[in-house]
């Protein structure tokens, strides 16, 4: 009799486990994002048949490539409980530095490397300041965003372009980075794919990534586990700076001109993408795949709204509303599902 019970129990448990896996996969946030993406394609496709043109869809990745890349870097920062408002200014700074050294040395490889280094330096500065002040990263990166955008503007003046005028005249090989294609697939898709894989491995498959999550979840616990929080934080912000710099330089290649205000409007959309992708602003949660899906969602939303003749201001209203409603909806979904789970558990408990 006893044995029978035990077998029954094991069966029940197995059944629940399988069910849970299916349920978890089905109701996971990433699946929801894919669903939203499909809904978006259906809606825009029915409003304007040109939207579903595969070549247009592929080439429009270039429009929001910089946002997606910055969002990938931002996911690492947010997962570790930080935030980087200065990522937009870093884009501007690195693009101007690339342009500046291109004008001065006519060596595009050197200029690009210096641009990337400037991003890393800026990010490291953020990290160091956050560590020595122990002030909320929001304030530090707000302050440094002033500093970086100011530096970019000043440098663009030195490079011979007054004010907000751009530096142009880049060589074809540089412009080709974003505007070219390999195997008939535009380069932006390749770049995004490669960077997503790199960031995925970094955040989800390495010790470094696990530690970032731990720091974000519980910094005290992280400290007592012997993790070198300071070193990791500086690395993290340096990576974010590098991400910003890559995004900035790709923007220069895309627009074929470097301007100090490139990426000035990026922080809002970048944070939107990371948070929509499942990163918790309180730290400890975040998903690279989710961020990629959210970037596609937001990017194609903008593209689709442009297709049906909606101005960018109206798009902003829409984007803000989508952000708020999604996050709020997710909150209520969590509350409801927790209630449901509790009720189920009580029911199961009463049965036995």
């Amino acid at each position: 009799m006893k044995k029978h019970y035990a077998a029954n129990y094991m069966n029940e448990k197995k059944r629940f486990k399988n069910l849970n896996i299916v349920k978890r996969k089905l109701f996971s946030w990433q699946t929801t994002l894919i669903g939203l993406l499909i809904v978006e394609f259906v809606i825009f496709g029915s409003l304007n048949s040109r939207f579903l043109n595969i070549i247009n869809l592929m080439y429009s990745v270039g429009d929001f490539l910089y946002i997606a890349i910055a969002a990938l870097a931002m996911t690492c920062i947010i997962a570790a409980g930080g935030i980087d408002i200065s990522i937009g200014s870093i884009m501007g700074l690195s693009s101007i530095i690339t342009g500046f050294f291109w004008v001065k040395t006519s060596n595009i490889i050197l200029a690009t490397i210096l641009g990337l280094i400037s991003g890393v330096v800026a990010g490291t500065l953020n990290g160091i300041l956050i560590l020595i002040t122990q002030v909320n990263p929001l304030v530090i990166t707000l302050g440094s965003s002033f500093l970086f955008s100011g530096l970019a503007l000043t440098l663009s003046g030195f490079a011979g372009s007054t004010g907000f005028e751009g530096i142009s005249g880049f060589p074809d090989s540089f412009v080709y980075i974003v505007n070219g294609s390999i195997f008939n697939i535009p380069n932006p898709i390749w770049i995004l794919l490669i960077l997503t894989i790199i960031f995925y491995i970094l955040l989800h498959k390495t010790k470094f990534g696990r530690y970032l999550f731990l720091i974000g979840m519980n910094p005290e616990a992280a400290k007592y586990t012997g993790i070198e929080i300071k070193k990791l934080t500086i690395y993290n912000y340096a990576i974010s700076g590098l991400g910003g710099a890559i995004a900035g330089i790709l923007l220069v290649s895309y627009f074929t001109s470097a301007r100090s205000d490139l990426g000035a409007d990026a922080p809002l959309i970048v944070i939107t993408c990371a948070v929509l992708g499942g990163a918790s602003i309180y730290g400890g949660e975040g998903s690279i795949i989710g961020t990629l899906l959210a970037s596609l969602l937001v990017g194609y939303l903008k593209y689709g709204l442009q297709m049906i003749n909606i101005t960018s201001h109206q798009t902003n209203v829409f984007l803000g509303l989508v952000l708020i409603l999604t996050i709020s909806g997710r909150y209520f979904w969590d509350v409801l599902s927790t209630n449901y789970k509790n009720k189920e558990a009580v029911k199961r408990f009463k049965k036995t």
Partner: protein
Amino acid sequence: MRKKFINIILKRSEILVIIILIIYFFLMGIKNPLFVRADTVIRILFNGAILSIISMGISSVIITKNIDVSVGSLLGLAATFGATYLNSTDHPSILIFLLITLGTGTLGGLFNGLGVAYGGVSSIIMTLGTMAMFRGILTMYTGGSWIDTVPEWFLNFSRIKFLGLYYPIWVMIISLIILWIFFTKMKWGRYIYATGNSIEGARLIGIPVKMVVLSSFVISGFFSGLAALIYISQIGTIPTQAGTGMETQAIASAVIGGVSLMGGTGNILGALLGALLLETIKYSLVFFKVPAYWNNVISGFLLLFIVVITSRIQIYLRQEKEREIEEALRR
């Protein structure tokens, strides 16, 4: 004894800001004695009225451990609606004008508060979203054009002096007094501090925390509307990007003045002084004719510098306190 005295000074961020202000004035005075005049102070107060009112309003949100980055856009929206009404009729009623401007601000704040307190959206996400939304609504409403005429009588509001000070400065002073009384003497003001200190603790002793958070956003929105009034009268034109970057400056000035982003500490006077410090820096850059594109570099650098100094002092104070407790325990 002397150490204790220094500690007391260091503990009050507003005193620290005043000291920094005096040192700054002194240094600028060495460079050019003409800088240290009563006129300069009045100019700074006049220019700083908008920023200081916003930063006082935003402090109520920061004290509850939330953040509001939509204030700049809300200022622009309220100013646009108000100025459009002023231009729409020949004899605008001042009451309706006030209602529109302040009402826009309050409603915007209410929307933020509802999302944060009852919608489960974290404040930075909520206000980042509404920042884009308010700006978008503004541009849609005006169709991208600027409002460049404001009736003369309303422009005069900020040009006429009353008891030696311009009206905007009086608005700033009255806001300071009202908020000071609200935050130190009234029950609801203390609730805001309690909620910021520990939301769970505040809830357990029976404070309606959701209402408190909601009210703090409404206060912030209302003062954005009030700042919009001054904006219309002081600037006289309302571009579509009116108020951009205001939110970052307001948060920075509140933090410089000792309002902690961790919630529950800081006071209104500090936020006001922080705003005036930023305004002093800005004014001195104009006074010494520094090329405009250096502005952001210098203000960004000074901002970080001040944040580093104040935070190091706070860390020092914390260690000092721990040492004191240790000594007391040993005894």
